[in-house]
Every structure is written in structure tokens, then in C-alpha cells.
């Protein structure tokens, strides 16, 4: 592999990782605090992509207004789901929550069919990001460069929010001991609602940012949810930087793995997850359950 090809592949791996991180970090945040495995997260991603399609193509709004609309749209959807339905399932068996989020997938998939039909859509690149940058030895597409900037920015913002603010301290406390937090006078249900909303909005942002690079079709939620789980499991459930590293590992394994071993492209991410689970069943950054 030449330097040019290596650089290009590394860059593409990074760009994929950053797009995936934005989506997976939302799933991870929700699991970390609510202890709910949200199967509907992939569907939230798909709605994010469809919403930006409607806002930019049908209404003619600029791309970044579309990204905000996707985030806001998913925040509203998530808030309604959490307040009306999901909150009744906290503390119940995991199986109930799984079945519930799976039901949300089916409902939203039918809703998407009613709203957008079954046509295939595409969203254009935002103005000024549709070309490529020539670095002499390698040509890089602008939009993927943009993803490589946005991903770390979101990671840093989340880290500041969770680790450096009072709100973040409450969120972290909620992951440790919800009863004690409630006893201290914190409105825990509100914390849960806020976390579910923010996590879901991240799926919307991830879907909106993915929209220019992929075709929008019904069923685009299906693979993404598996990939998010792989990333979250590799990094360690509930650990933000774990998801970041997990996404990087995923991006590079998919990119280089598909180049070097194309026949293995389907299983490589799963093999990666398996390898991590054998060595550290709690993920790279997670802690064993007993250690909590």
C-alpha cells in the first residue's frame, strides 16, 4: 500500500468513525444513565436523515438549518416517547424495555412509510463542502474532512457537559445511584427525560450528517443499530470516551479490513467485538459490573 492509499484509507476510516461516534454516543449516553438498551436508536437515525431531506429539499432550507431541525425533531419525538411510555418501564425487567423499544421501531417504520412513502431520496452536500481538497500527494473530499472536525467537537462538548458542569455531575450521579440522588432532592425523572432527549437528538444529528453521503431508503436503520451496538460494546457500555475509541476501532477495521480482506467485510466488525469481549468482557473502557 502506497503512502497515498494508506493516508486516504486512514482518513476514510476516521471520517466513518466520527459519523458513527456521533450516533453511537447518543445510544451510549442513554444506556449509561437510563440502563435502557434503545433498539429504536437506528430508527431515530433514519428519521434524522429523512427530516433533513424534507427540510432542505422540500422546504429549501440551508443544510445546517436542516441538521438543527433533525436534532429538534428527534428531541421532540424522544420526549413524547419518554414521558408518555418509556418512563413506566424504568426498573422493570430489561426484556420489557427491549420489547418496548422494538415496538417503537415497528411503529416508526410504518410512520415513515406514511410520511415519506417508499421512494429513494438523496440529500445534496452543503454549499462549499461538495468538492475535494488537493494536498498534493492525496485528494480528500471536503465533506469527510468536515466530519473529522465535527466528531471530536461533539466529543469534547459532551465531555465538558458531563464532566465539568453541575448538570453533568447530576447525570453522572444518576448512573451511580438513582435512589440516593432522588433522596438529595434532585428530580430524577427530569434527568432521565433530558438524557433520553439529548441522546436521541444525537441520533438525529448523526442521521442528518450521514444523509449527504448515503442513499435514503426505508430500512437504512437496520444495519446502523448493529454497528452502534458494536461500537458501544467495544468501548464499554456507558463510557463516553469508550465509544469514541470504539468508533475509531470500528472505522479503521471496516476501512482497512474491507480493503485487505474483502471477503471478510461482513464479519470483521463482529470479530473485533468478539476479540474485545474475550479479553475484556466489559469493554475497553468499561468496568466490571461487580466493581461499581
Amino acid at each position, binding site marked *: 500500500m502506497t503512502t497515498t492509499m494508506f493516508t486516504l484509507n486512514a482518513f*476514510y476510516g476516521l471520517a466513518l468513525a466520527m459519523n458513527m461516534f456521533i450516533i453511537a454516543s447518543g445510544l451510549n449516553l442513554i444506556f449509561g444513565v437510563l440502563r435502557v438498551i434503545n433498539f429504536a436508536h437506528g430508527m431515530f437515525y433514519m428519521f434524522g436523515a429523512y427530516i433533513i431531506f424534507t427540510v432542505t429539499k422540500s422546504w429549501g432550507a440551508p443544510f445546517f438549518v436542516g441538521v438543527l431541525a433533525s436534532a429538534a425533531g428527534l428531541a421532540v419525538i424522544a420526549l413524547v416517547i419518554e414521558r408518555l411510555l418509556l418512563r413506566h418501564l424504568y426498573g422493570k425487567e430489561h426484556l420489557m424495555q427491549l420489547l418496548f423499544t422494538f415496538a417503537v421501531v415497528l411503529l416508526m417504520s410504518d410512520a415513515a412509510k406514511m410520511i415519506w412513502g417508499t421512494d429513494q431520496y438523496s440529500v445534496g452536500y452543503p454549499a462549499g463542502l461538495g468538492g475535494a481538497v488537493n494536498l498534493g500527494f492525496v485528494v480528500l473530499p471536503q465533506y469527510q474532512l468536515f466530519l473529522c472536525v465535527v466528531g471530536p467537537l461533539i466529543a469534547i462538548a459532551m465531555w465538558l457537559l458531563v464532566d465539568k458542569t453541575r448538570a453533568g455531575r447530576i447525570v453522572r450521579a444518576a448512573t451511580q445511584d438513582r435512589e440516593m440522588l432522588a433522596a438529595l432532592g434532585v428530580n430524577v425523572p427530569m434527568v432521565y427525560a433530558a438524557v433520553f432527549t439529548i441522546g436521541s437528538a444525537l441520533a438525529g444529528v448523526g442521521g442528518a450528517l450521514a444523509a449527504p453521503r448515503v442513499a435514503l431508503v426505508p430500512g437504512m436503520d437496520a444495519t446502523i443499530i448493529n454497528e452502534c451496538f458494536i461500537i458501544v460494546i467495544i468501548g464499554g457500555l456507558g463510557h463516553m470516551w469508550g465509544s469514541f475509541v470504539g468508533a475509531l476501532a470500528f472505522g479503521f477495521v471496516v476501512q482497512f479490513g474491507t480493503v485487505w480482506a474483502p471477503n471478510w467485510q461482513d464479519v470483521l466488525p463482529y470479530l473485533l467485538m468478539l476479540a474485545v469481549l474475550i479479553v475484556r468482557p466489559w469493554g475497553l473502557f468499561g468496568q466490571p459490573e461487580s466493581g461499581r
Partner: protein
Amino acid sequence: MRFTAAILAVGALGAATASAQEPIRIGAMYPLTGGGAVYGVPAMAGHQLAIEEINARGGVMGRKLVSVERDDKMNPAAASSTMKELITKDKVHIVVGGLASSVGLAMSEVAKQEKVVYIATIPKTIQMTTDKLHRHVFRTASHTDFEGDTMAMLVGKHKLTKLCQLQLDYAYGNDLEAGVLKALPKYAPNAKVALTLKPKLGATDFNPFIPQVMAAGCDGVVSGLWGPHFVSWVKQAKPLGFFDKIKWISGGEIASHEIAGELKDDYPDNVISNTYELWYHAQDASHKAFQEALAKKLGTPETPQWALLGYIGVHYAVAAMEKAKSTDSDAIAGALEGLTIKSPVGTLTIDPKTHQANIGQFWGPMVKKPGRAYRMMDPIEYIQPK
């Protein structure tokens, strides 16, 4: 228990006495949810249009047609059990449809076991009419050998010598790859395939493949990336100037208006591809009449190509029953062999040996047109097997 038996007995009696006026049940299976719905839903619309038209003219042999419609979920296992249900529970007289080649093969297997005729209206894998051929399976779609043959012809026509082949890694892609390779020596003896890459079915991220193709220095790409695969490839490759220097010769109907109309300015240069149907091009008056009826049903003049295939499937099923004067599976199968019908895209005949209809496709380059927001095929050539 006795109650159930009584109901069954009454049911059997009813069936025996009412059979003269009993409607003919046509089972139709297309993907109506998930990724395949993009094609399955319009195909079903064409299917329904044919049913409505035939019922409006009085049905078949004095009997009304009833369409029993199911979602094949683009999943071979699900399609198998759904089709068995159609046959055993809904008692359909014939099954039409399928989209993915893998699903078509699964449905063909059920037809073989249950001895009920299945007309494959979209699946293209050559296996259905060669290795896996049996008495009860017929195809009214094109197939991978003919598509590969046409692509090789285009490679020769454009004097391409260094090819990159891109195919999806499943039945359709593998068979189309073989079809191209088989025909290359005939049309383009100087052409060499320098690189073959096989992304998986459903892939959305083509970045591992795009740099390899660009580095290989091919002057032509032969591809079977259809629908969303092509769109995602274009979105990821176009910013790099990928399409500036190569000819993209593609099967998989990416010249259809569904894709051109959606991609608009993003549709790249240098694409030569195929489609079953173009709403802006009618062969003759009956073709135009079909397009107008479909436009009325769907509420848009820019109709999708897939409707034609659903439409032809029903017409073949009905023509066979009329010829056989029966709804018996073996009689229908016998009637389909060598059967000629008039379709919107010309006269079609099913080969009695291979059970394959000689349907053609429109082929041509996708070019910009003044005053149009999307690309159109020009010149248009209808290429039909002899």
C-alpha cells in the same frame, strides 16, 4: 373438534358448488417494507393496474380476478413461508412477483414443491432458468446473462480496454459478473478486467473501494450496483472527480427515472445504463396507453419503471389461463411454454425450453437536457434478445 369438522365440511361443499363462479386468485409477493419497498411498491402498483383493467373488461373466463398481496420482506426465508401460506391457506391459483434474486430462488423452490406456477417478474439471476429450472417456474424479467452480454457489447462499442468490475456479493452480482466475463471475448477481445471488487448487498459505505478503483487506472467500470448502492457510490466518489475520466457501464437499471429524478445535478457524467421503462419514451400507441393509465393511477406522469414488470406478470398469468382454459397448475405451466403476449414494450414470447420471456431493456447514455432538472437517456435503444 366436531365443530371444526363441520365447518370444514360446509367449506368443502361450498367450494364444490360455487367453483364455477369462484374468482381466480392471483398471489402477488413484492417487498413492501424495508429497503426493497422502493421497487416492490411500484411493482405492486403495476400489478394492481393490470388486475383492475382485466376485471373491468369482465375478468378471465367469466371469473373475476382477486389479487392476494403479500410482503416478501426481501428475505428468502420469510418469502418461502409466506408463499406456502398463499398456496395452502389462500389457495391461490398462481403466484407472481419477487424482486431480489435470492428471494426469487426461494420462491421457485416453493413452486417446485407445491407444484404451483410461479412467474418471476423481477429477479434476474440466470440460475432460475438454467440449473434451478423446473416445470412450474417462469420468468418475465430480463436475466443476468443477457444483461452481461449487453454490457460486454457496450464495452466493445466504446473501445474500452482496461476494466474494473464492481458487483454486489450475492446471487445477482455474482451471476452478472459471470455473464459479463462470458461475453467479453466475443465483443471486446482486447478488454482485460484489471480489478474486481465486490461490496456486500446493502452496503452504504463505499470508501474502502473507491480509492482502489481510482488507483487501478481503468478506463471503464462495469457495474451491477443498483439503486441505493449506486446513489451512495456516486455521493462518495463524485467529489473526487471519479466520473471525469471513466465510462460507467452498468446493469441494475440505474438509468431509470427514479434514480435520475432523485439525484438530479448529482447524477454523474459518463454513465451508460439500462431501464425497463422510461415514462418520456413510448414505443407505440399501446405503450403510451399503458403509461397514461399508470400515470392516472399513481397521480404523476413521471412513473417508475418497476410497475411495468408487475403489469406484465399479471398479463402472462391471465393469458396462460385463457389459453389453458383452466386454473390447473400443470395446464397453466403447459400453456406458458411458448406463449406469446402483446405487452406495452412489444410482443413477448416465453421460450418453451428455458421458460424465459424475451423481454428487452432500454439502454443508453444519461445526458443533460436543456430545461430539465434531471438527466435523461439519449439516444434510447431498445435491446431485446432474439
